[in-house]
């Protein structure tokens, strides 16, 4: 079984590497099973090509497989052979059942968290100067209008937040306002949940459309207060 042993070991090692080693490399993440399957398929294809490149290696590769399947002179492996014969049809049946069964899971939602803003809201700069006074005023407006959901600590954990999915944005999280420009915040605050484009579906955002209640100047001040309070800086074009 020598010619067959190496490929089996290689496949198992490849699987173990993809499943357990790769996700632990810094900056990596667990691989989806479909990707692991694809990589294993490529590995198997490579092994197959390598083993069948010459007549001798082909025989050395195929003969043990044939011997195993026909059960000739395989001694103790006979039990494994029966096991394979029983499990293979069961596996085929199981796979078929899984692919035809009606899913119990609700439809998946592929919401774009930060959809592109309309053209008129790109690249606007904050017309309100970043002075301590303006920041303080912005924080006052924030406390009155935003903090019930986004939280007094700018962490998205306000008292009114609990029922809302998606949860109100946590501004202290570096993946929210820190990677957005001020003009983007201006758009989101002005238009709210109902201003989202189609990519923002399923439109569960409870964010108010503040343009009906607050003047633009207040919104720009709130943006100043928000960045200052959350200890973040807006993204800029360097």
């Amino acid at each position, binding site marked *: 079984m020598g010619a067959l042993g190496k490929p089996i070991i290689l496949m198992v090692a490849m699987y173990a590497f993809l499943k357990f080693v790769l996700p632990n490399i810094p900056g990596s993440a667990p691989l989806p099973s479909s990707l692991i399957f694809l990589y294993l398929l490529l590995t198997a294809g490579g092994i197959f090509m390598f083993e069948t490149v010459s007549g001798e290696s082909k025989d050395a590769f195929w003969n043990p497989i044939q011997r195993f399947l026909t059960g000739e002179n395989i001694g103790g492996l006979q039990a494994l052979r029966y*096991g394979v014969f029983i499990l*293979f049809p069961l596996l085929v049946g199981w796979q078929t*059942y899984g692919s035809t069964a009606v899913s*119990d899971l609700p439809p998946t939602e592929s919401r774009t968290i930060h959809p592109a803003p309309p053209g008129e809201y790109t690249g606007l700069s904050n017309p309100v100067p970043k002075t301590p006074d303006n920041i303080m005023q912005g924080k006052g407006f924030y406390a009155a209008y935003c903090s019930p959901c986004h939280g007094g600590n700018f962490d998205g954990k306000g008292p009114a937040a609990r029922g*809302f999915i998606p949860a109100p944005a946590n501004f202290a999280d570096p993946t929210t306002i820190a990677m957005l420009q001020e003009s983007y915040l201006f758009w989101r605050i002005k238009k709210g949940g109902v201003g989202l484009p189609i990519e923002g579906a399923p439109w569960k955002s409870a964010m108010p459309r503040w343009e009906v209640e607050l003047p633009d100047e207040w919104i720009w001040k709130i943006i100043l207060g928000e960045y200052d309070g959350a200890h973040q800086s807006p993204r800029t074009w360097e």
Partner: protein
Amino acid sequence: MKPANRIMKRVLRDGTAAIAAMIIAGASLGYAQENVSVRATLLTGGVPVDDPGAAVWSSAPPATFPMSPQVHWQNRIQEVTVKDVIVRALHDGTQVAVLVEYTDPTQDPDDAAALEFMVGDKKAHFAHGQPMLQVEGGPVNIWFWKNKTGKALDMSAKGFGTLKPQEHQDVTAKGVYSNGTWKVVFARKLLTGHADEDVQITAGQFMSISFAVWDGRKDAVGELVEKGSQKAVSSWWYFRADAPPDYSGYMYAAIAAVLGLGFQFVLIRKLKKGQ
């Protein structure tokens, strides 16, 4: 042959155990989704359309949904009495009943609750189908119950300020208050003849549902604290009426397994002959 037989038995036993493990894992996955969707269990015989205390409700899995004050539109409030609703549903292929249960320390004439559904294929914002600025959304169908009237109102809306009772009233509701808990059952036929204003419930299909509750208590000067847009709301969740059991999956699996077995048989015969 004896050892081979013993080994066969072992293989069979281990195989059965592995398959049982997969089935259990699959079943627990199915259970885990219940807090994002309401599952209307299929019954034979009538659903308890006017009995929130009926024993049969225990056969419907409960799902709990968190509530928030309505903040999307003015007038808003920042605090509400009801923090969660527990929802169960039953259907019999003709009628559907939805039981909403929540804690409320006092029974007041203005206590009220509502269900909201999207109507048709177009998506709608959960705040009364408030118009989206960049996309055209659809209307919503609201089933509203109030303690003091003791009945349901079947309503339509497409944005705040457009809520109105429908011409055809298809919904019934009954609320029972006991030990600080409201249990309100809403009922309707799965299908009505008015697909443009009523949600049409097709068994097996996921649809969107959301909830609203008003605590009808009054403040020190006798004003209602929660009224109109000042209420507890939920986001959109899923609702699905169970489809009748379908065993065709088992049949397809059995056919596939037999084909797999046949393939093995032919392959080995060919290999043996070839040698």
